[in-house]
């Protein structure tokens, strides 16, 4: 008997620091091949889509196949702008973190298409339950970057009164829920929100995002179960960016099956989508939103992408993955791919791109400078410490009144 066969199996990634990047076994189908079923199709009719890959933009910059959402050049330029603004904002915020102006930051570099394309495919009235790497949703919904950065610096303008870690945004006016920081908890809450929308007879769709790593949480199973049981008008999105801090997707079960295919078992359509393909993401989200609005219930979408940067400013990815991994990533860069498509259509040019990059950089710099005028973490200009006792309850109970007095506030 070969005892090696009985050893505990622990999955390991194909490559580690110093290795040449390898991305085998990704089921990369050519763009345009995936069929687009009717939005009211049975969940099981999406089985092939959940193991395949919905792609619209091919390697030559063409939009091909049934999933092409046929967006106007204006819409695509808008998407490009939001993605570029997100990247520019992230870059500048990272720099400000290094300057000690905030305690922490998380970039979405390399996966900007997820939040931007999905956000644009939804209506402004649709409800968003994001995780911490979907700042692109705020760009799409037009949140002032001054307010975003003010929150991250916990300064006098922070709409969360200095209570939350940076990037854990809340923006009620933009139908953007409060980001928790505990992972996946928002997934079943989004189902509850969607159930309430259905209860009230509204045609609002709710969308939520998690990373592939936290799909191992119980709340993932709970959310998909409830979404199926109550046919909730919700879109449950899993952003498979390959890395959960230092753990590759195989540690969350990504080697055994695709994440998208897990939807089928709960009776939800599962769509596996090229997460760096703006048009494919837009089309898949549009499909799911239409299904939800027509009473067809929830959809589970896996966006296959790559976390280009570190998990957070407290992380150093060079210690666990090859440095050149992102450059070698077979699905490319979402901004480059949409840019190339627009150039191919003669609706964009390298010059215009460079010019927009400069404009956005200027906008980001001026916004962040204005945000700084309200204080940074290092100059201690935050909300008054006495506000710490507010909003525990609607009305302050006696124990908190006493403690506030005891604290001299």
């Amino acid at each position, binding site marked *: 008997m070969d005892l090696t066969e009985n050893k505990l199996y622990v999955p390991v990634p194909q490559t580690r620091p110093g290795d040449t990047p390898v991305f085998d076994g990704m089921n990369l189908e050519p763009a345009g091949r995936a069929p687009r079923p009717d939005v009211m199709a049975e969940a099981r009719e999406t089985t092939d889509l959940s193991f395949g890959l919905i792609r619209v933009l091919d390697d030559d910059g063409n939009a091909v196949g049934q999933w092409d959402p046929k967006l106007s050049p204006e819409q695509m330029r808008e998407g490009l702008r939001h993605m570029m603004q997100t990247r520019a904002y992230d870059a500048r915020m990272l720099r400000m973190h290094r300057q000690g102006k905030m305690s922490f930051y998380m970039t979405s570099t390399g996966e900007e298409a997820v939040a931007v394309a999905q956000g644009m495919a939804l209506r402004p009235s649709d409800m968003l339950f994001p995780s911490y790497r979907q700042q692109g949703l705020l760009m799409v919904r037009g949140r002032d970057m001054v307010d975003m950065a003010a929150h991250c610096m916990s300064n006098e303008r922070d709409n969360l009164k200095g209570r939350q870690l940076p990037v854990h945004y*809340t923006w009620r006016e933009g139908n953007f829920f409060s980001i928790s920081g505990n992972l996946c908890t928002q997934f*079943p809450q989004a189902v509850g*929100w*969607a159930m309430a929308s259905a209860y009230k007879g509204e045609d609002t769709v709710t969308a939520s995002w998690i990373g592939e790593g936290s799909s191992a949480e119980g709340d993932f199973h709970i959310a998909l179960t*409830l979404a199926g049981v109550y046919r909730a008008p919700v879109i449950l999105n899993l952003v498979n960016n390959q890395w959960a801090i230092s753990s590759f997707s195989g540690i969350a079960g990504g080697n055994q099956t695709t994440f998208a295919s897990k939807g089928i078992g709960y009776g939800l359509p599962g769509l596996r989508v090229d997460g760096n393909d703006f048009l494919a993401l837009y089309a898949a989200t549009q499909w799911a939103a239409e299904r939800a609005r027509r009473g067809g219930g929830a959809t589970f979408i896996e966006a296959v992408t790559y976390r280009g940067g570190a998990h957070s400013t407290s992380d150093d990815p060079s210690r666990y993955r090859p440095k050149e991994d992102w450059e070698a990533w077979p699905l490319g860069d979402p901004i480059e791919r949409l840019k190339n498509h627009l150039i191919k259509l003669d609706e964009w040019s390298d010059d215009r791109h460079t010019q927009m990059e400069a404009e956005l950089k200027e906008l980001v710099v001026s916004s962040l400078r204005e945000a700084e005028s309200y204080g940074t973490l290092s100059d201690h200009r935050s909300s008054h410490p006495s506000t710490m006792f507010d*909003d525990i309850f609607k009305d302050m109970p*006696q*124990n908190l009144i006493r403690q506030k007095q005891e604290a001299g506030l």
Partner: protein
Amino acid sequence: MPQMNMIQALNSAQDVMLERDSNVVIFGEDVGYFGGVFRSTDGLQAKHGLQRVFDAPITEGGIVAMAVGMGANGLRPIAEIQFADYIFPGFDQIISELSRLRYRSAGQYFAPVTIRSPWGGGIHGGQTHSQSPEAFFTHIPGVKVVVPSTPYDAKGLLISAVEDDDPVIFFEPKRLYNGPFDGDHEKPAQGWGNHPGGDVPEGHYAIPLSKAQIVRPGTQATILAYGTMVHVAQAAVAANGIDAEIIDLRTLSPIDFDTITQSVEKTGRCVIVHEAPKTSGFGAELSAMVQEECFWHLQAPIQRVTGWDTHYPHAHEWAYFPSQARITAALEKTLKV
């Protein structure tokens, strides 16, 4: 006035709230068509409709999470956790989400959720159907914790909980569902018929949260109790003739400081009674509070009569369950000083 047992009173409270507010919805395991394993929602689905009173799958985490999402989206959910012993899969959603939503969003979002759950022992429920986990919840800022002791209080407090804009954990002493229980398990079970707490008005009335009630005025010592132990303490005092003041806390968090401190300042002695284990139980908080607030009025050390620091036993339930005799012994001990 109509007579109701505690189940009927809870049912009536939910009926009243479903009637008054179309945003009230009820869900939990077996609460729909069947009306709940203890019958607390009996007939409510038939009367108010499938969308308002419905069954949830067996997922306490999911039941709380749904309530968070629905509550934040304008509804006023009443979520039932079938036994308090089962609440722990929902603990993260209560601790990290429900309790903090108003705070972490700086008031942009809040979830007016009521979580009802049968609680406490005395029904031969063993370790998974008898626990009193209130201290886990009183430790969390942002949730209120309520425990009624009569049908009248149960209805009025539940209505207040549902109308409250903050989350409320509403623990129901299940041994009191069908009648008061004085701790003597060998006596035939009593109904609520002969107890004034069984007189329950049909319509809407509210009992304010965070208000304790003096159920027996007295001069020699103060007994702090809640739930079933209110009745055990009353019986103990009736039998031993000690003129103790008994306070039914009703809301454990946020606590009613004044009623407690005024009483202890008057009597100079304090006995705390609860079913949960002693170490880090809610009695520890009460004891610390009384010591901080009333130290110069205390004539004797504060006494705690609680469940033991064991898991809740099945065969040995009555050796665990705080008895009249233990309450009397504690009173005598404090009076000796």
